[in-house]
């Protein structure tokens, strides 16, 4: 599934990485706890989070996460967007809750980090 399709499914806005919307993503994880992201096989996946801080972007970069979605209309600060641009991590923001966002992407065919549905 292309990031542009994920954007449409979530009615999301793009905060950074407009040039990377053709990235293909099949696996997705959701967490506000970056410690959890770092212990899971998150390489090449999508991260859904309510943590709109610079650590979400740095964690994504370290863990090889392909893109980050901020749920519940969380608007990160300029430093977060700056870090994402520097690290080439696409950032999206969706108005939906974590639950509804995950449901929408699951309905579109995205799988969990272990490939299960």
């Amino acid at each position, binding site marked *: 599934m292309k990031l542009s399709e994920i954007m449409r499914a979530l009615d999301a806005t793009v905060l950074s990485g407009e040039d990377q919307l053709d990235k293909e993503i099949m696996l997705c994880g959701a967490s*506000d*706890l970056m*410690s959890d992201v770092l*212990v899971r096989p998150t390489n090449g996946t999508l991260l859904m989070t309510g943590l709109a801080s610079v650590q979400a972007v*740095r964690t994504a*970069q*370290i863990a090889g996460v392909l893109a980050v979605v901020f749920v519940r209309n969380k608007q990160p600060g300029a430093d977060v967007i700056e870090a994402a641009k520097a690290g080439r991590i696409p950032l999206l923001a969706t108005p939906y809750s974590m639950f509804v966002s995950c449901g929408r992407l699951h309905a579109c065919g995205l799988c969990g980090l272990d490939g299960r549905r």
Partner: protein
Amino acid sequence: MPAGSAGWTDDDRPVACPAAQREAFNHANSPFMASLRKSFFIKARDFAHAGEASIHIQNLLKSMHLDSALVRRIAICSYEGEMNAVIHGGDANIHVDIETDHLTLEIADDGPGIEDIARAMQPGYSTAPEEAREMGFGAGMGLPNMKNNSDDIRIECEPGQGTRVHLKFLYDAKREFT
């Protein structure tokens, strides 16, 4: 360069040698001909810049064409260690030693030390303040994750002398991580 992150540059990055040359030097498992040390300063409580040193290390190792799974393991350990130092440790330094057949990370801080190392190694045990949890950390998974992602971990800790975490990574280790 942001305040608190002084002390590193992209200069002197080691150069991976071509396969033929590598063979000639009889370092079949090593991408490098000589050892090299890089050090990075970490400022205590500086959450705004926490993680920058580890991203720098990750970019350095990527540029040297180390195996990508190995780079991810090293970067995760470095980042966990960097966050630990920022949260608990007082000012700290991360030293990266790139050797011919392995790499070591040493995270050395000036903090109060770890009261009970055995408990700190247990998943879920944490003494982190609320501030760390607001950043998505402090769940008591840092040290166990560093152990899981490295080939060897050693923690030195004396009261009032800070903490030194030594991590070793073998270039040819075949490991499966979940």
